[in-house]
């Protein structure tokens, strides 16, 4: 686990990346990635398949060396990779023993509570558990180690819809109790509403945007109105869609100015996280084609 306690402007930073780059042979999987994640946040790392989410996470977790730039996490990091690996011959109880022996801090009660919550048998070899149950063992191990920063790569990928909701809820209650910082990656944006309060958006190995979710969404607005070439308010057009008689604009409002009021045929709609992310990703795809 890497430890690099850093603070800027008095605010504690849990994870920091500075000009981070990583390439596999000639192809850059990650480039010029710079951000700071404040402590205590639940951050979502979002991007299309192959955007570099896993690469970024493993570099941040100290499991992979960057080719340029630097990365650091404050305190102890726990990382659960996409495959939710566990030792197949170990029982869940063995995995907890493993956690107790290989960590400086170990919260047995918390790990056992997680396993009990999801009804995981303690005495069966993990290789005989289902994929979803193995994932719960991996989560219990990570929770039990009481990390300062918890990194989860596609945490909900092989869980059923009910388990997804339960895991999300449990995770948030752990965050409330322990004050840890969580960074989780996903390409299913719908799962994130109400979970994440910070967003890191990755496309083609580059960080498109990052920051406080409410602030990001507040800076953007969606207008729907009669077909038109320009939106009813000033700002950067993130996305424009037109039908025969209707136009929809997603506009990034200029900073430091009051929110414009539009009237007439135009309807202003608050932006959902999903709208925002999809529009951003769509824009990069069009940009890549051009």
């Amino acid at each position: 686990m890497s430890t690099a306690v850093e603070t800027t402007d008095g605010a504690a930073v849990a994870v920091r990346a500075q000009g981070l780059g990583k390439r596999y042979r000639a192809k850059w999987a990650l480039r010029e990635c710079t951000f700071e994640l404040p402590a205590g946040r639940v951050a979502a790392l979002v991007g299309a398949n192959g955007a570099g989410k896993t690469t970024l996470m493993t570099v941040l977790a100290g499991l992979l060396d960057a080719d340029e730039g630097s990365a650091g996490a404050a305190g102890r990091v726990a990382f659960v990779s996409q495959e939710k690996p566990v030792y197949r011959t170990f029982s869940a109880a063995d995995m907890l023993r493993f956690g107790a022996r290989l960590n400086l801090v170990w919260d047995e009660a918390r790990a056992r509570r997680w396993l009990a919550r999801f009804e995981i048998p303690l005495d069966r070899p993990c290789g005989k558990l289902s994929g979803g149950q193995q994932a719960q063992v991996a989560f219990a191990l990570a929770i039990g180690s009481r990390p300062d920063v918890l990194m989860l790569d596609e945490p909900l990928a092989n869980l059923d819809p009910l388990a997804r909701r339960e895991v999300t809820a449990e995770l948030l209650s752990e965050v409330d109790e322990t004050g840890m910082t969580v960074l989780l990656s996903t390409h299913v944006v719908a799962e994130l509403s109400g979970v994440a309060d910070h967003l890191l958006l990755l496309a083609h190995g580059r960080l498109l945007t990052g920051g406080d979710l409410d602030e990001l969404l507040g800076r953007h607005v969606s207008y729907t109105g009669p077909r038109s070439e320009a939106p009813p308010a000033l700002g950067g057009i993130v996305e424009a869609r037109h039908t025969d008689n209707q136009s929809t604009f997603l506009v990034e409002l200029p900073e430091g100015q009051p929110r414009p009021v539009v009237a007439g045929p135009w309807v202003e709609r608050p932006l959902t996280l999903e709208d925002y992310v999809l529009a951003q990703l769509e824009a990069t795809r069009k940009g890549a084609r051009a």
Partner: protein
Amino acid sequence: MTATTTGVVPVAKRAGVGWGDLAWLTWRQHRWAIAGLVAGAAAVVALALVLVWRVDATGDMQGLFGRWRFISLGSVVMLAPIATGLAIAVFWAAPVLAREYEQRTHLVVWSQDITPTRWLTGKVVLLGVPAVAVAVGVGLAARALVDSINATSDRPVFELFAMPAFEAVPLVQTAYAAFGFALGLAFSAVTRRTVLSMGLTLGAFIGVRVVVAGLWRPNFQTPLFKVEPYDAYRQQWDGPGDGSWVVNSGFSDAAGNEVDYPACSNTVDQAAYAKCMNDNNVLFFTQYHPADRLVPFQLFESAIFLVLAAGLLALAFARVRRARRI
């Protein structure tokens, strides 16, 4: 969620992950491989000691255990010095890293409060030291059997320069075990596939052993050279019997230059053959290493394998410490 608080079992905090923890992990992961090899080696050592006792008591090695010939039991024991290093390489070392990569559990263990380097150091020490101990035990037992059997006869039954007697000493066994362990670990780190790593380790171990023993060992030092007439040479037909090692021999002239086989094959008896050889000025040359080179040769061979082991170990550590892919 029930109202359980986390105060029931206190949160455990400590300063570091200790050797006891790594020992627990190593045993828990590799217990079958460890138990299998240790049991096999213990059986071989026990068999060797029984044979030593039997040979020492009877001074006879022909009729061991009734119709069991020495060769059937003894050869099992004498296979051990050849096989131990190989078994350690293939069954202990080759899966260590490869299985972790294959099942992605390296991401689990290295995400705990332990660095990859410290973890690997733990594995190397906790598996490598027992591996060397097993090899030393096998070496000592096989050596005792060689000495015992050689003592029953004027001429050595096991030529000390030849396999398996050359290998059956603790130092050489240590070097093979260390080399095998490092080789398996290096393939494990490079290929990241268990079966592939085991196969390559098997092939490479045998390959290196054959090349060093077959091609290099005869040339560790320049062999001594002697030229003799046919009669003197014939008396030591199956080797000089003084513990020296003949690496090359053939027909030569008095100056030692190799010559073609003379046309003496149609002679009627040994005397006529000898006379024909003498008439043609054909002598016999021998290139050999005297008996007192045995220990220096064993030291040199051990050094070769220990240097290779150090290089391979460094490669494995470099791979693990500087991960270029996950």
